[in-house]
C-alpha cells in the first residue's frame, strides 16, 4: 500500500469530523473564563446531587430500555405469538413520539390532577393511593419507553440474521429456548445491544425536555440553569465539557471491554430457521408484553394527543401546517441523507485505515449526540459566526455566508446526529467479510463497482436503519433548529416548542401529532424492508 492511500482515509475521516470539531472548539473556547466562585457554588450545592440523579437515571433508563428492547426484539424476531407480524413494526412506532411529548402526556394524564387518577378517585373514593408519576421511577419509565426502540431496532436486526440459528445450535447442545436466549442470542447480539444502549444512554444524558416536565434535576438541567438562570454561558459550556469527558471515558471503557471480539457473522447461505412457536399461555404473555409496551409508548399517547389536537384543530389547524410539515420532512430527509453519506465515508475510512488519526477523527465526529442540544446549538452558532467572520476577511463584504442558511442548520444536525447514522453503518460494515471484497476484486470490479455492487446492497439494512434514526431524531430536534434556522423555516418541532414554552400543551398536541404521523411512514417502510431482507436470507 502506498503512503498516499494510507493517508486518504485519515483525511476523509478528518473532513467528516470537521463540523463537530468546529463546534467542539467553539464550546471549549466559550467555556474558558468561567466564574470560579460560581463553580464553588455548584460544587457545594449542585454537582453531587445532579451527578447522582443523572447516574440513577441513565442506569435505570438503559436497563429498562435494554430489557424491553431485547425481549421484544427476541419475541418478534425468533418467536411466533398472536399479533407478532403487527408488533414487529408497531413496536418501533414509539420512536416517532418525542420523549418530551410522552413525558407531558404521562404527567398530564397520570399525575394527581390528571384524568386517570381523577376518574379512579371518583370510583374508589378520595383516599385511594396511587403511585406518583412525578417520581424517579416515573421519569425512568417514560424515558425507557421513548428509548427502547433504539435497542429494539438494533437487536432485532441481529436476531433476524443469526438469532434463530444460534438458538438451534444451543438447543442441539441441550439448552432450552430461554437458556439459549440468555446464554447465546443475547451475548451474540451484544455489539448491537451495546450500540442501541449507548444511543439510549446518550439520549438520556442530553435530554432536557422530558426531565423538565418531571422537574428531575440532571447534569443537563444544571447546564441550562447555569446558562438561563445564572447567566453564565461559560459555566454552562464548562459543565457540558465535563459531561462530554465522562461520556468519552465511558465509551472508551466499553471499547476496551469489547476487546478483540469481532462479529463477522456468516449470514451468507444460512437458511432462516423456524420461529419458536409460543403456545397457549406463553403466547398470550408475549402478546401482553408487546401490547402493553405498544399501548403505553404509542397508542395511548397518540389517542390523548389526538383528543387534544381535535379540541384545538379549529383554532390552529390551517394551511401553514402543510408548510411546517413539508419543511420538517425535507429537513429531516436532507439531514438523514447527509448524515448517512458522511457515515459511509467514515465507515470506509475506518475500514481501510486503522491509523490513530482516523480512529480519533471518527470518535470526535460522533461525540455530538451526548451533548445537550442547546449547548451544541451554542457551539454551532459560535462556530458559524467564526467561519463567517473568516469568510468576510477573505472575500470581503458584509453579512453572513453560512449563518441563517439551511446549510448551517444541516451542519448543526450533522454535528449532533452523525453518531446515530454511524452505528448502524458501522455494524453493516463489520458484517462484510474482507473475503467478499477480495472476491469482487478478483472478478475484476473496480473500487467504485465494489462499492456500488457489493457494499451498498450488503449495507442495505444498516443504511435503512441509519436513515430512519436520523430522520426521526431530526424531526423531534428543537434547540439546534430554533437557534440556527433561517427566517421563515419554522418546523413542527418549533411549533411544539412555542406552544409548550407558554404551557399550552393541548395546543402543542397538534404539531406533536403531526410529527408522530410524519414519522410513521419511514418506520413502516424500514420494518417492511427488514422483514423482506430477513426472508431473503
Amino acid at each position: 500500500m502506498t503512503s498516499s492511500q494510507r493517508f486518504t482515509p485519515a483525511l476523509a475521516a478528518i473532513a467528516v469530523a470537521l463540523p463537530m470539531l468546529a463546534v467542539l472548539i467553539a464550546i471549549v473556547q466559550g467555556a474558558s473564563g468561567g466564574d470560579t466562585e460560581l463553580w464553588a457554588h455548584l460544587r457545594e450545592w449542585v454537582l453531587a446531587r445532579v451527578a447522582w440523579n443523572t447516574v440513577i437515571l441513565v442506569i435505570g433508563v438503559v436497563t429498562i430500555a435494554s430489557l424491553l428492547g431485547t425481549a421484544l426484539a427476541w419475541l418478534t424476531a425468533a418467536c411466533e405469538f398472536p399479533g407478532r407480524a403487527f408488533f414487529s413494526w408497531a413496536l418501533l412506532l414509539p420512536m416517532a413520539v418525542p420523549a418530551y411529548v410522552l413525558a407531558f402526556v404521562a404527567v398530564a394524564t397520570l399525575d394527581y390532577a390528571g384524568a386517570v387518577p381523577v376518574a379512579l378517585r371518583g370510583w374508589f373514593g378520595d383516599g385511594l393511593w396511587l403511585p406518583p408519576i412525578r417520581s424517579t421511577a416515573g421519569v425512568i419509565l417514560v424515558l425507557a419507553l421513548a428509548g427502547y426502540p433504539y435497542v429494539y431496532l438494533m437487536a432485532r436486526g441481529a436476531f433476524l440474521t443469526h438469532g434463530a440459528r444460534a438458538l438451534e445450535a444451543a438447543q442441539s447442545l441441550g439448552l432450552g429456548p430461554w437458556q439459549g436466549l440468555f446464554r447465546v442470542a443475547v451475548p451474540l447480539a451484544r455489539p448491537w445491544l451495546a450500540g442501541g444502549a449507548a444511543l439510549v444512554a446518550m439520549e438520556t444524558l442530553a435530554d432536557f425536555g422530558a426531565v423538565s416536565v418531571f422537574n428531575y434535576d440532571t447534569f443537563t438541567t444544571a447546564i441550562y440553569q447555569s446558562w438561563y438562570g445564572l447567566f453564565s454561558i461559560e459555566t454552562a459550556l464548562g459543565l457540558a465539557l465535563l459531561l462530554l469527558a465522562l461520556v468519552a471515558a465511558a465509551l472508551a471503557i466499553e471499547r476496551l471491554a469489547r476487546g478483540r471480539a469481532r462479529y463477522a457473522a456468516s449470514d451468507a447461505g444460512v437458511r432462516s430457521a423456524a420461529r419458536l412457536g409460543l403456545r397457549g399461555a406463553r403466547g398470550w404473555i408475549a402478546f401482553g408484553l408487546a401490547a402493553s409496551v405498544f399501548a403505553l409508548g404509542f397508542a395511548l399517547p397518540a389517542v390523548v394527543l389526538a383528543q387534544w389536537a381535535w379540541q384545538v384543530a379549529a383554532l390552529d389547524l390551517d394551511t401553514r401546517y402543510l408548510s411546517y410539515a413539508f419543511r420538517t420532512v425535507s429537513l429531516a430527509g436532507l439531514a438523514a441523507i447527509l448524515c448517512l453519506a458522511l457515515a459511509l465515508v467514515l465507515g470506509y475510512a475506518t475500514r481501510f485505515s486503522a491509523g490513530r488519526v482516523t480512529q480519533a477523527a471518527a470518535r470526535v465526529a460522533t461525540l455530538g449526540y451526548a451533548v445537550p442540544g442547546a449547548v451544541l446549538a451554542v457551539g454551532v452558532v459560535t462556530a458559524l459566526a467564526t467561519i463567517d467572520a473568516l469568510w468576510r476577511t477573505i472575500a470581503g463584504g458584509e453579512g453572513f455566508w453560512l449563518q441563517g442558511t439551511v446549510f448551517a442548520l444541516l451542519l448543526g444536525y450533522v454535528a449532533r446526529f452523525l453518531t446515530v447514522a454511524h452505528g448502524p453503518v458501522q455494524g453493516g460494515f463489520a458484517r462484510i467479510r474482507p473475503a467478499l471484497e477480495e472476491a469482487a476484486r478478483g472478478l475484476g470490479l473496480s473500487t467504485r463497482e465494489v462499492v456500488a455492487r457489493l457494499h451498498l446492497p450488503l449495507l442495505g439494512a444498516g443504511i435503512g436503519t441509519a436513515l430512519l434514526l436520523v430522520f426521526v431524531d431530526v424531526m423531534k430536534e428543537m434547540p439546534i433548529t430554533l437557534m440556527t434556522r433561517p427566517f421563515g423555516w419554522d418546523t413542527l418541532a418549533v411549533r411544539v416548542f412555542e406552544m409548550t414554552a407558554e404551557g399550552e400543551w393541548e395546543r402543542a398536541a397538534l404539531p406533536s401529532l403531526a410529527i408522530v404521523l410524519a414519522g410513521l411512514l419511514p418506520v413502516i417502510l424500514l420494518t417492511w424492508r427488514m422483514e423482506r431482507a430477513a426472508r431473503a436470507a
Partner: protein
Amino acid sequence: MSLRIALTRLLMPTLMVAALGLASQAQAAGSPLVVYSARKYQLVEQLFLEYGRERDIEVKSVTDDGAPLVQRLIAEGANSPADLFISVDAGDLWRATQAGLLSPIKSPLLEAAIPAHLRDPDGRWFGLAVRARTIAYSTERVKPVELSTYAALGDARWKGRLCLRSGKHVYNQSLVAMMMVDIGEQAAERVVRSWVANLAAEPFSSDTLLLNAIAAGQCDVGIVNSYYLGRLQSEKPGFPVQIFWADQKAGGTHVNISGGGVTTHAKNRAEAIRFLEWLASPAIQTRFASVNFEFPAHAGVDPLPVVAAWGTFEPKLVNVGKLGETQPAAVRLLDRAGWR
C-alpha cells in the same frame, strides 16, 4: 432503483435546497424589520403581520428562549440581522444590556406610555405587557381573608397545602430576586425555606399543571402568573381557583414584563423604534396584552374583562431591571434552600 442512483437522486435536492437557503439570504436586501422574539409566535404573529402590511415592509422573525437569542446576538455581533429583541422576562433584557446588545433610544412617546419602573432608565428596553406573579387559591378550601403576603405562605397553617412551580423557572427566580431586593437575602432565604417545608407535592413544571393541581385538591394555594389562570378560567368557566393579590399592604405584587429593545447593531433602527412605539400605542396595547391575558404596560389601557375581574392591584414599584441584576444570586439562594 439501485441504491447508488437513489443516493444521487436524493443528494441533488440537498444541494438545491442548501443553495436556495443561500439565495434567500442574499435576497433580504430591502428594508425588512428583523425581530428576535422570545415571546412566542402565536402571541405576536398577527401584530407582526399587521404592522408589516401597514408599513408595507416585511417583518421577519425567529423565536427561541431568551437566553439562546441573547447568545445568538452575541455570536453574530456587528453582523447580526436583528433590529429588535423581544423578551418575556426582564432578566433577559438586563442580560442583553449587560452584553451591550441593546442600544438606548430616545422616544417621548414610549416614555409617556410606559411607567418608569417598567422600562430601562437609559431607554435600552421598554416593557410592553405586565405579568403579575401572585397567589392562587382554591375557592373551595381557602378564604381570601386567610391570605396576605408571599412570605405568609410559609406559615404553619399552609403545611402540606402549598404548591410551587419549579425553582428552575425564571418566573420564580425573579420573584425571589424581588424579595431579596425588598427584604434582604437572609430574610428571603428564610421565606423560601419555609415555603419548601410547606410543599404538598414536588414542584411542578408549569403554572398550568399547578393550577390544575389546586383545582383537583392536591393543594390549596400556590404562586402563579395570573395570565395562566386567565386562560383556564376562560376555557373552563367555574374553574375553582381564584387570584389573590399578594403584598398589597407590603409594597405591592411582584410583576415582570414582556418587553423589547432596539439592538446595538440594528440595520433598520428607525423602523425598530417606530415598531416599538406602535406596540406601545393604546389600541395595540390592548391586543398585545389580551392575547395572553396579561396587563397592558400602558397605564391608561384596560385589560380584558376576565383579567379586570380580579380587581386592581398595586404593583411593586422596583424597577424590573433590578430583577435581572439580582437573579443569579436568587438562583444560588434557591439551590441552597432546596427549591428544586
